[in-house]
């Protein structure tokens, strides 16, 4: 496995040669800096840590700045560890898209889905709701119905699906084809949708 950190730009569509219209997501992946290489001797496990996204020095602590300064890097907003990395990397190296990915490859995108707030069971868990509006039913169209039996077991089972906070989860999407790479603007065009809002961080893995 190897990967990069990027930013979701937005979606557009492109036609394939067969005439199929594909929904595509554009991801910007400006050079990620290798900010730390963890070794088994030193840290107990192997990992490559990448840093992405410029930010002002004042928004980071001195410890964070010092950590990045070891890799001769400016302040970076997002640090991500990759437990395996196919490329040979050195501390402070700037990884470009073409170093890691090729056009036509299938990759994985990890992001944080958009927050939906407190949602009921119909939207959150795909319940069907009560169904008809007839037979005297008038005020529970999107309710969950029964959540368990009576005096045995006398309680509601743990994990019973109910309403609650939805979205804002870490979501992984596999098998996204790289349609095109634009090296001059550090852009990757992926076939399909990826989780998260525009301008949110995305981890791209291979």
């Amino acid at each position: 496995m190897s990967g990069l950190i990027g930013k979701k730009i937005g979606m557009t569509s492109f036609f394939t040669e067969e005439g199929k219209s594909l929904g595509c997501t554009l991801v910007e992946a400006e050079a990620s800096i290798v900010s730390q290489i963890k070794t088994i001797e030193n840290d107990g496990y192997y990992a490559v840590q990448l840093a992405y996204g410029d930010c002002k020095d004042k928004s980071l602590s001195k410890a964070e700045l010092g950590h990045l300064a070891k890799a001769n890097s400016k302040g970076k907003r997002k640090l991500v560890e990759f437990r395996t990395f196919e490329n040979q990397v050195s501390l402070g190296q700037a990884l470009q898209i073409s170093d890691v990915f090729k056009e036509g490859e299938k990759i994985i995108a990890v992001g944080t889905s958009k927050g939906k707030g407190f949602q009921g069971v119909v939207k959150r868990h795909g319940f069907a709701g009560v169904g008809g509006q007839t037979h005297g039913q008038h005020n529970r169209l999107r309710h969950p119905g029964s959540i368990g039996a009576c005096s045995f077991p006398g309680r509601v089972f743990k994990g019973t699906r109910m309403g609650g906070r939805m979205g804002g989860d870490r979501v992984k999407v596999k098998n996204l084809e790289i349609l095109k790479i634009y090296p001059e603007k550090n852009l990757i065009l992926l076939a399909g949708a990826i989780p998260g809002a525009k301008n949110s961080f995305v981890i791209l893995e291979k």
Partner: protein
Amino acid sequence: MSDLIKFVESENKEKRAGFPAFKAGDTINVHVKIKEGAKERIQMFQGVVIQRKNASTNGESFTVRKISNGVGVERIFPLLSPIIEKIEMIRKGAVRRARLYYLRDKTGKGARIKEDKKGMIAKKAK
């Protein structure tokens, strides 16, 4: 829209420039490629443009309406679709709306559209 998305979509600029500048009210002739097994042939679809949607994006589409054997037929084409071989401008129409949905309720004489000679609509707006 993001500048970066515009940059990526700009690769369709040439294809876009190959089409005439048509708008709602114009009569156009769309040459559509049709695959029949291994053979490919061209079919025409001539009618009035009743709308253009999502202009200047990759998802831009337009709707053409014609009356075929007394039945109204509408076809929606994605502008950048590879099945469109060519678009011919037949007649410019003088209309005051961007979406001509009212044509669906009209037949015969009522469904006629005045010809826009010498860009009358553009002049009037000034």
